[in-house]
């Protein structure tokens, strides 16, 4: 398992897309908005999968799906977490780091986005009493999903700042 990138956004990647705004103003912004939509939907699907069917391969696919678009947009921390979800779903990995460990890796400039961020929702201990065979993986994926939502909030903050409007 690679370690999570320190920067929320890989601007070299995102700038390539912003570059296309030349022809079509707001092209990149529309993509970001589309992504925000997509991410919310995907997170909800994941949560639903975790709560109900507990189908690991579904979670794998969902993780892979969101990884694709987040990576394309340079949202590399989200992509990293999604890759964890994907691998957990494939049972290629069986561990997900703690929230605080991951947040501590944030680069200095990106740490400012942690301010005023209410993490209480995501930081409560996850205990899953279940007899499900894949309980271990599902637990880790739940943890990862919480991390993904936090990374998503951070990314939104940085993007909102860039586009000078609340996204």
């Amino acid at each position: 398992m690679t370690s999570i990138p320190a920067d929320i956004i890989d601007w070299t990647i995102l700038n390539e897309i912003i570059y296309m705004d030349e022809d079509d103003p707001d092209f990149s912004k529309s993509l970001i908005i589309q992504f925000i939509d997509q991410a919310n939907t995907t997170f909800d699907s994941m949560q639903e999968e975790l709560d109900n069917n507990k189908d690991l391969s579904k979670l794998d696919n969902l993780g892979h799906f969101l990884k694709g678009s987040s990576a394309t947009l340079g949202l590399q921390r989200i992509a990293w977490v999604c890759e964890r979800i994907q691998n957990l779903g494939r049972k290629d990995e069986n561990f997900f780091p703690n929230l605080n460990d991951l947040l501590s890796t944030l680069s200095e400039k990106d740490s400012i986005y942690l301010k005023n961020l209410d993490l209480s929702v995501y930081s409560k201990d996850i205990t899953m009493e279940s007899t499900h065979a894949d309980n271990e993986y599902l637990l880790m994926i739940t943890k990862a999903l919480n991390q993904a939502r936090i990374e998503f909030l951070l990314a939104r903050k940085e993007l909102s700042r860039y586009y000078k409007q609340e996204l």
Partner: protein
Amino acid sequence: MTTDPIKIRPLSPTTTQRTTTPLNTAVVWKVWVKLEDDLNSSINQSIAIEFTQHDTVDDLKSKLLLKLNKSRWSTLNDNTSIAIGLYIETPKIMGHNVSKSPRGSIYMENNLFKSKPKLSLQQSIGNNTSINNTDTHELFTFNKSFSSTALNRDFNTIKTSNLHTVTSSGALISQQLQERNSPFIYPQGHSPKISAFSKFTGLSLSPINTLQISNFKYNSNGIHRQSISASRNDLKYLTEIIDNNTSRIIFEPDEIIIRIYSEVFGPMGVQQSSEPLQVFTTDISNSINIKSRRCSQIDVPLSKLSSHVNNENMNINHSNNISPNSNNNTKNLAETNKLKRDIIMNYELRSSSNNNQKTSNDTERFDDTNIDSEMNSPTFNPNTSSDNLRRESVTETEPDFRIITDEEQLRKVSNSIANDENILHAPKQAILLLPKNFEGDVKFESQQNDAYSPTSADMDLKSKKPNIIPFQEGDTVPHSGLQEQEIGLIHPLLEGSPSNEPTLPNTPPNINSRPTLTDSNIIHKGLQTSQTNSNIVGTTDELKSTTNPVKPKMRSTSENIFPRINILIVEDNVINQTILGSFLRKNKIFYKVAKNGREAVDKWKEGGIHLIFMDLQLPVLSGTDAAKEIRQYEKKIGIGIQKKQSSSSDLSLSESFLNTKSSACAPVIIVAFTASNSLADKRAALIAGCNDYLTKPVNLHWLSKKITEWGCMQGLIDFDNWKQGQSRMTNNVLVKKQASLKSRKSGTKIPTKQSSSHNIEADNI
């Protein structure tokens, strides 16, 4: 300067390899080079550079720079700013050579369009000296950008018909012609270049049958075939005209030194330090500035010719025959003086002539008479010769040229010229193709008479046939069939864009008129695409820049050109679809989108897809499975296998391919987008039948490289269809632009059908 001829064996005490080099390995050889740079008088002598069997010109430069490590010169220059070559002969020599040698020198045009205005004027002065040679109008001007295929084809045509033809591709020729007042004579300045060059190598020359030109290669293939080893062929160099009596040859950086050496100097060790290769700083203006030192330099490599030169100079320059042409020059001069730049040129001419005078003192070899005559030439003293001119031109009753503006006529004439081939003693005729609406400084009606003074050879000719048949498509001449398009003057893309060219193609070219030219032009486009990566936009830029004589910049090859291909994007994520789609649209590449592997296979079956970007992890049918499926289909209907007619008669399958038969013969290229870096994924993709992979997130820069790479591959495999695509794109590009704005939302676009009408047209070209 003491000069011991270099031996092949270890050379000097400083040669460290001396004791260690076995006999049969590459021995250290040396070549003398000399800097041409007046900033640096301290290095005003030949420098011996060691080189080995495989060293290229570029290596030589590196070694030179290393050797001069501490000098100011080396700090001011690097490998790219210097060039290695040699100066070569004067038109006066040429005159001689040409009249002596069989007709049909081939002049290789590479960078001429780069020559600045001053050069062109100087060139016109060169005419003074060369007009006597009436049989030197055989010139093959080849544009650098011609593909070798095209060249070969053209050349063959020319050879068989024994035409003496100026072929041009693109605007370059017109530029040259416009820059040079007398296109008929201009070639003469060059024809001897090769004569001299080969003479130099101790080879006799009969250019028309012996020189082969492939893409900027001087191929001395045919010259005494037995005496030259194969390795000596294909010396790659450019020629640039410095002024009326000098041009320089610049060897391509990747040319092997040993070949240059053996071609220019002969067996190893023959070169003397007094006949070094020149190291140019590549800026041609620079070399003009330092012209005062030029003379001592040029005559060095020509030293073997020097006596011969002297004689000829006497011959030519003191005869009356000069005058008509020189008057022509003054006329032209007056004309061109209207242009600002020409004032500068004029100045340069004078100064250069002064330089010549100066240098004559320095160089014994440079014949005084030569310079005197040049100084006395009517360009500088216009009045002296005008009377002569009048008389001469009155005697000229019949023009030496005919203007042909329709193809039927052209065919007749070229046939008649071809039949003329067996007339050995008459000067050959040339067909000069000029662009439509050709204006320039050339006035055919008046100049023609001036330009070709009646020499004996000319008279001979006149009794038989008109001498030169140019196309002039000026205002006075009605023209029907010939269009610029046919000689590739303007890229079709230019049609809609602002251009310096006064003319635009407006009617479709006649099909049978000159298939060689048009075909070669297309091939040229295609090959250039694959070879240089330059943009189509870049190409048009190139054209434009050639119309601007002040800006002879080399085009960057890093600009992307995208082959005209259809791409299928297989991607389930809308965001990635959008990004890829926008990128392709931005680069005017048609694409379709498939959301999963199943859809991908179906869309591929619809046909017309050259390239598939396949995400691997897809819903419904994974990318690897889709790739496998596609390969199976291909195998089944025999795509990519050398065609067995029967194999494609499988009706159920071939049905769906009927409309795309021609394009379906090449297997589609599948580039996998692997999300992870894992080797296993990539292997799986390749095993499934993908040709290549990119790791996501896809870097758009890499993506464009892949498109170019694979698209061009497809272009080569499936040339006919690709060619159609090329023209389709040029025809539709404007429409597309507008359409693309709308289609951005929908994300798909199916270009093939709406443009079928254009395809027919493209076929006809």
